């Protein structure tokens, strides 16, 4: 049985841990609000972008067989997986859930005989993957210096990857990130961005046909500019959603931790008081039996 002093110390340490988790929860809540706002503010843009691309590509078939970001090319031997995770831990299942879906994807792609390359955005994803797949990770992008993500950050990443695409380093690109749904729910999402998956809405157009657009300059020239931009915006979206999810996950994880800590403090205090009483009773008995013996 631990001594009373030990128990006191333990209660003290749990209390100070609880202080830390409470503080972290509050910090996450403040950051979450900001991250959520910027994630929501960027949604109209990516929706508009999808709208534009659907409008253009529905009536467009690439004339040449050249490599392009819209249709990729016929090869699909090399897959690039991009994993968006956090730079810091203590955020519950946030990193492991999304990494798990990457692992499953790697396994299924390897079974199909494909070459897999991985880019980790955020350190934690790499930490989880490095034991099994370190040779596949071609790059880890450090986001520690970046406090709030700007479009320029996303553009820097996307420029690098587009260059890799045209250097034929991969054929298909998939991104994995946590989509922010609410504080308690983040959905690990897999999205293919090269070639673009176009949601075919052709069937539910209400009479307005998209082939009626005038293009200035030509469709292909517009696409040449639009597609890299779309690529950047998809990455931007993933970064923002992931940042908001991270704070949400951290907030609920820290909330749980604080609650567990107070449960633990209660139990320990109860145990401490009982032990204290037991010691007093024991001492009394000793005194009484000592007095009787005289």
């Amino acid at each position, binding site marked *: 049985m631990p001594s009373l002093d030990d128990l006191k110390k333990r209660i003290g340490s749990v209390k100070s841990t609880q202080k830390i988790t409470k503080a972290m929860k509050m910090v996450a809540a403040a950051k979450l609000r900001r991250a959520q706002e910027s994630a929501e503010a960027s949604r109209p843009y990516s929706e*508009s972008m999808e709208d534009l691309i659907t409008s*253009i590509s529905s009536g467009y078939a690439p004339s040449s067989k050249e490599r392009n970001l819209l249709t990729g090319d016929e090869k699909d031997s090399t897959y690039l997986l991009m994993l968006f995770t956090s730079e810091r831990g203590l955020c519950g299942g946030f990193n492991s859930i999304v990494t798990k879906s990457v692992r499953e994807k790697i396994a299924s792609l390897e079974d199909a005989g494909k070459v897999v390359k991985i880019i980790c955005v955020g350190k934690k994803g790499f930490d989880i993957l490095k034991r099994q797949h370190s040779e596949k990770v071609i790059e880890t992008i450090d986001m520690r210096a970046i406090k709030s993500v*700007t479009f320029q950050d996303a553009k820097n990443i996307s420029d690098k990857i587009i260059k890799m695409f045209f250097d034929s380093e991969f054929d298909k690109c998939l991104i994995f990130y946590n989509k922010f749904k609410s504080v308690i729910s983040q959905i690990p999402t897999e999205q293919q961005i090269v070639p673009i998956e176009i949601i075919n809405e052709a069937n539910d157009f209400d009479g307005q046909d998209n082939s*009626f657009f*005038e293009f*200035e*300059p030509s469709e292909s020239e517009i696409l040449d500019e639009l597609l890299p931009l779309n690529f950047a915006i998809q990455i931007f979206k993933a970064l923002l959603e992931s940042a908001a999810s991270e704070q949400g996950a951290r907030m609920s994880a820290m909330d749980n931790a604080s609650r567990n800590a107070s449960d633990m403090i209660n139990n320990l205090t109860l145990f401490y008081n009982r032990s204290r009483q037991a010691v007093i009773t024991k001492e009394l008995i000793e005194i009484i039996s000592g007095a009787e013996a005289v």
Partner: protein
Amino acid sequence: MSEQFSFKLVTPEKTCMEGDASMVVLPGIEGDMGILADHSNIITSMRPGLIKVIGTNEEKLFFVEEGFIKFSNNELLVVAVGLDENEKINNDFINAKISSLETNLEAASENLKSKIQNKIDSLKLLLN
């Protein structure tokens, strides 16, 4: 008053403007274009320049670095990158943009160089 059409201007960070306009002047890649209600459906890209939005009783100016527009069913959608609102636009601002593009130009690959050069040229035209 002329007819109105709905207008929406979005950037990666936020929706900058949403509302009705009677005319919007855009720096199209092949020249400035003014869009009025019932314009034919069009999709085009933009060069660096000024977007002028004429609403019912106000006018607004934006500077845009690049972007795309789509007009259909009396809805104008402007998808912009590098947008700044009116107050900041002066020669210093444009010169700063030009010099940052010039540094990009040195680092850029061959096929991008002409694009960046075009951008610089259209920015220089804005100087007064």
